């Protein structure tokens, strides 16, 4: 044992140096080898499908009022599990970097890849890919599983109806965007607890704070907040009053995620690790 087993330095190596490909491979390795990734994804899966099934099994069409029947939007109701999903995937996003700061791994990472914005971009890519895949699969899974329990004569939604496919696709993408916002907050704040608080504050608490300011303020502000956008715009097939259009809301959410990540990357490059 000792250095006799060190491999010769002559080993061929590509000349170019590390880059997006190799760094992305590192980040994918990291993401898939911690249990929290799969626990959070599994709870997300169970939550999305069971909440959809539970909600649909409780629809009593015969006892619903006229206005209730008119506003009944099964697609929107089937995606109610996103309220839980955004929390879980937001935490996953925070942990993807805050766990590196808390353990000290971040210093090993940056000693291997000094280009810090590239590390963050690679994290965003693998986190985004995993959470988008999970979100889309579960959005459709919740749609079909829940509707199987919805009893006639309650109207069913179909993929061919206007807005339904769009609602499922945007609903599936929404928790991935929250995961990316979580990653950006984790990069800025570095502490797991602090970053999760910030993420919960933005997603869950901010909408509540607008309520005491009166309906006019709430109507004007809430449509710009992520959770309201998800509930009343992205996943809504029947339009809700005082809301942005789904396309604008989705674009805005993408801008939020990008803005937090760019700010995080900038801070990461400037601050000592």
């Amino acid at each position: 044992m000792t250095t006799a087993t060190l491999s010769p330095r002559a080993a061929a190596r590509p000349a170019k140096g590390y880059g997006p490909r190799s760094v992305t491979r590192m980040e994918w390795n990291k993401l898939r080898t911690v249990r929290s990734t799969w626990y959070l994804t599994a709870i997300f899966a169970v939550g999305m499908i069971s909440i959809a099934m539970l909600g649909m099994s409780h629809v009593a069409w015969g006892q619903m009022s006229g206005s209730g029947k008119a506003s009944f939007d099964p697609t929107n109701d089937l995606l109610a599990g996103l309220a839980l999903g955004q929390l879980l995937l937001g935490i996953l996003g925070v942990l993807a970097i805050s766990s590196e700061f808390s353990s000290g791994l971040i210093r090993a990472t940056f000693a291997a890849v000094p280009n810090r914005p590239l590390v963050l971009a690679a994290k965003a890519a693998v986190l985004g890919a995993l959470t988008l895949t999970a979100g889309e699969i579960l959005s459709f899974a919740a749609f079909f599983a829940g509707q199987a329990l919805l009893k006639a004569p309650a109207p069913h939604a179909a993929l061919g109806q206007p807005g339904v496919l769009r609602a499922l696709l945007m609903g599936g993408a929404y928790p991935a965007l929250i995961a990316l916002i979580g990653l950006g907050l984790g990069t800025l704040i570095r502490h797991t607890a602090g970053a999760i608080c910030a993420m919960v504050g933005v997603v869950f608490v901010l909408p509540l704070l607008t309520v005491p300011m009166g309906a006019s303020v709430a109507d004007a502000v809430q449509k710009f907040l992520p959770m309201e956008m998800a509930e009343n715009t992205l996943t809504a097939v029947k339009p809700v009053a005082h809301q942005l259009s789904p396309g604008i809301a989705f674009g805005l959410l993408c801008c939020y995620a990008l803005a937090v990540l760019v700010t995080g990357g900038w801070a990461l490059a400037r601050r000592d690790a």
Partner: protein
Amino acid sequence: MIEARGLVKHYRHVPAVENLSFDVRPGTVTGFLGPNGAGKSTTMRMIVGLDRPDAGDVRIDGRHFAELRWPLREVGAMLEAKAFHPGRTARAHLTALAASNAIPPQRVGEVLAITGMEKAADRRAGKFSLGMAQRLGIAAALLGDPRVLILDEPVNGLDPEGIRWIRNLLRDLAAQGRTVLVSSHLISEIAQTADRLIVIGQGRLLAQTTVAELSARSTSLEEAFFQLTDGATDYTARSM
């Protein structure tokens, strides 16, 4: 070869490193010595680009760390014992780091063997003793078979057998022509491994010398070290 020139680093107006210049040469183990809080870790962090110097410059074989194409293949660093996610296995930790610099996966098995970590490879690293954590950190530093090694207090937590092992390892690595910089606050420990010494106190260079030259300065090596670092600590203890 590591060349530090006029390094300065302050943390919120508290000076950590003040105008520090030194060379670390290849082919020999260089001990980086100083009392606690002398600025050893800060300096090592600046060498690998984790902390940005307020002034001055440090180069590795003539280049800044950020310019290295394959950092892990050129510089292996262990800056703290537990720089890993506690839930990840030793093998997964090393595999991820290796991937970042396109190091072939079989190299992970090699460094696990070199550090005697084969049996523990598939255990979660959070359960490791300090000694095993150090071995994992050394395994990570060796991943890229680098020409330059920078190890911060690698002996901490190792048992006598482990200490002897790392001494031999560091000497062998230096004998192969590599540059090896090892920090310690224990002169007696480092004297058994290193030939050259860089001694700092309160962030300033106190001596750049050899073990032989330093021990010739006084009745013993330890005495010479205390004379050198006397007054260069941030703390004093009274006798009881």
